[in-house]
């Protein structure tokens, strides 16, 4: 990793961005809370998230015959309730906040964010399917994955994506002679 010298303005810039990251996330999450109970929530949770997850489970194990019923995946032998915190919006908002505070061109950020959101959606589907199988096989694995394993791994993989994108954005900025983003990481 290349050495970076840390001076006060850079540290101050980082501090502002770290605080802004949390605040932007809080704003996005508050907006989502205001949409609770609305058609937006039903569309995202019931129609997009749960139905896709049920289809994925039936693709992997057709014999399970999982059915999407509202926010629940119902199947003989045990199903899953996709509740608050499991619909993937938390990691999506974290990624949005990261792209907001990272300095780069708007076009690069939009492209990176859109691709990232697709990645997070796919990861969340894998999370839901994984929790579904874990619940049916071994409750202790489910408990471990549900409380901390799945959020940790999702955040890690999303973080890796953001890191790769940010390094590419820096390289592209350097090639164009533009000022490089000043996050001293």
């Amino acid at each position: 990793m290349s050495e970076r010298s840390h001076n006060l303005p850079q540290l101050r810039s980082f501090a502002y961005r770290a605080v802004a990251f949390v605040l932007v996330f809080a704003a996005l999450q508050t907006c989502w809370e205001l949409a609770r109970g609305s058609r937006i929530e039903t569309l995202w949770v019931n129609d997009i998230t749960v139905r896709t997850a049920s289809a994925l489970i039936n693709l992997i194990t057709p014999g399970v015959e999982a059915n999407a019923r509202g926010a629940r995946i119902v199947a003989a032998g045990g199903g899953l309730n996709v509740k608050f915190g499991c619909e993937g919006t938390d990691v999506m908002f974290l990624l949005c906040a990261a792209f907001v505070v990272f300095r780069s061109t708007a076009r690069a950020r939009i492209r990176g964010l859109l691709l990232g959101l697709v990645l997070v959606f796919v990861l969340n589907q894998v999370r839901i399917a994984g929790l579904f199988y874990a619940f049916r096989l071994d409750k202790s694995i489910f408990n471990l994955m549900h409380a901390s394993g799945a959020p940790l791994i999702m955040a890690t993989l999303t973080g890796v994506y953001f890191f790769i994108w940010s390094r590419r954005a820096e390289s592209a900025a350097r090639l164009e002679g533009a000022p490089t983003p000043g996050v001293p990481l």
Partner: protein
Amino acid sequence: MKPLLPRGVSREAAMLGIRLLVCSIAVLFIVSSVSRDAVNALLPAFALILELVADDFKVLRFGFVNERGNESLVLMALLKQTLFFDTKLVLPDGRTMLMAGVTLGTVLLPLQVVLAASLAWPGSWRELLLRLGVALVLVAGVLLVDTPLTLAAWLWDGQLRAHAPDQRSFLVWWSTFLTGGGRLSLSIAAAATAIVLGRCLSEILLKREPQSDRS
């Protein structure tokens, strides 16, 4: 010969990705295996914060519960003082038990995120130690504003739903924020801060070393 890495993915990024994943999985299993002891060590600090933010309630029990293999931290309390809402007065009856709980995995999630990132980030041994020192201080702060406030919010939320459903509470908003990903956002911010400050402190110490010691 085809490159091993996808186009645009540098070796540096790939190595960091692998390190992050390995450290996350390792930290997950290690912290989970000592979760009860870790949370036990935090209980006195949690109890102190609870006393400050939930002083309208009398804590009867604050400890561990194992329900069907799922270990949780549970708070049982009674209403201690009269609560005043807009048009209502709620008197403590000394009987109605209030309960709030959170799984140990949720309690320790900030620790896992910060530890995984701090261990995975490349740097010298000195930088790693400094980073870990800063990380532990920061994650302690996150833990103190997380679990005790979440438990207190559960107690308040019950009262608000029963007696003043239209009333807003910052504590309840904070708990919703934490549960909806805020816990992760604070942990990520703490991890990034630990990485930056660790590097900064390492450079400061390196500059202060006599020239001959550096070679």
